[in-house]
């Protein structure tokens, strides 16, 4: 046992090895829990999407693909800087850990800013579910798919379900990002104090796992929510 930094070894663990094993296993079980948490939303999405393919495609075409793609790139980049921060924490390179953490947080905030503009756009166009929800199928689409007036009405209702799912999924995802940014800021203090090294870096590692998980969710949200309208409407 390395007695030099025994303050970071909790008393009920026998060794740093055991503490690290327990910590990362605990984090993975937590992520399994997160998978099922988002899984409920993905299940709802799958059922409605398979039942209302065209309706969802039409609703989806109201999302902003360039902004969605930009956010995907931002998150992937932040995953990279996060992975580097974990690497530097193992190597106990204090300044590099702090630097990469800051980069990660800046990218995370960038994502949230883009998301803010996207949400604002939805509020402007009243595509936020609720009493003021308004959605109109474009005349070209009605002509293209030869939709009856009743069909247009159901389509507008299904669009509200799509946007409900959109706001639930991206909202919970954004909430996870906000929490992540909070944890990241809190981690800066031990990072600056040089607490992390080969034996003790679980906080950074677990934060990294959490951050990557949030990235993973977005990797699925982006095609499912943004892209499935692209072909249906461009191809016709």
């Amino acid at each position, binding site marked *: 046992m390395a007695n030099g930094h025994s303050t970071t070894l909790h008393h009920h663990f026998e060794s740093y090895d055991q503490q690290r094993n327990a910590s990362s296993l605990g984090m993975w079980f937590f992520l399994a829990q997160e*998978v099922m948490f988002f899984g409920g939303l993905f299940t709802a999405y799958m059922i409605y999407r398979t*039942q209302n*393919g065209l309706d969802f495609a039409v609703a989806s075409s109201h999302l902003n693909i360039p902004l969605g793609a930009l956010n995907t790139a931002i998150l992937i980049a932040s995953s990279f800087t996060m992975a580097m921060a974990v690497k530097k924490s193992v190597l106990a390179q204090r300044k590099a850990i702090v630097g990469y953490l800051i980069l990660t947080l800046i990218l995370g905030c960038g994502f949230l800013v883009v998301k803010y503009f996207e949400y604002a756009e939805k509020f402007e166009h009243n595509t936020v579910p609720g009493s003021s929800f308004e959605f109109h199928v474009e005349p070209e689409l009605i002509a293209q798919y030869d939709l009856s007036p009743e069909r247009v009405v159901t389509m507008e209702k299904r669009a509200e379900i799509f946007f409900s799912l959109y706001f639930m999924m991206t909202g919970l995802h954004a909430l996870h990002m906000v929490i992540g940014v909070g944890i990241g800021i809190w981690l800066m203090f031990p990072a600056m104090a040089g607490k992390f090294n080969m034996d003790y870096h679980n906080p950074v590692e677990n934060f990294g796992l959490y951050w990557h998980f949030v990235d993973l969710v977005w*990797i*699925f949200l982006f095609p499912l929510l943004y892209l499935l309208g*692209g072909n249906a409407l461009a*191809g016709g």
Partner: protein
Amino acid sequence: MSSHGDHTNPGHQVHVSSTSMYLTILGALIVLTGLTVWVAFQDLGWANDIVALGIAFTKATLVVLFFMHVKYSGRIIKFVVLCAVSWLFVMLSLTYIDYGSRDIIKPAATPVDAEYQDLVDRGYAKKAKASASHGKETGH
């Protein structure tokens, strides 16, 4: 009590990946993002969804294996990842067998069906068949 638990655990040797590997993964993820946007605008019929999900799974696998170090982790962590993915799969697939098979076996007509038909006629409920036709429309 000097030694503990599962000795195949990951921690005994902390794995450090090279920066160039992380950069390679970053590049691959960005390229795949571009690809999925581009392919969404190509008309592949029913295959569009499959391709989009396939790309997403590839990206997810890269993140899990390399950024999250599962490739270098012990058996138990691989087991947890497997658990999470398979439980999600169970939830998706078993829920789907209900919705996917509602038209296969129809219970005998009951007075309720007549009432339901009435609701459909008056525009309060949707036709049972309507869902199937939406699916086809998407494939244009």
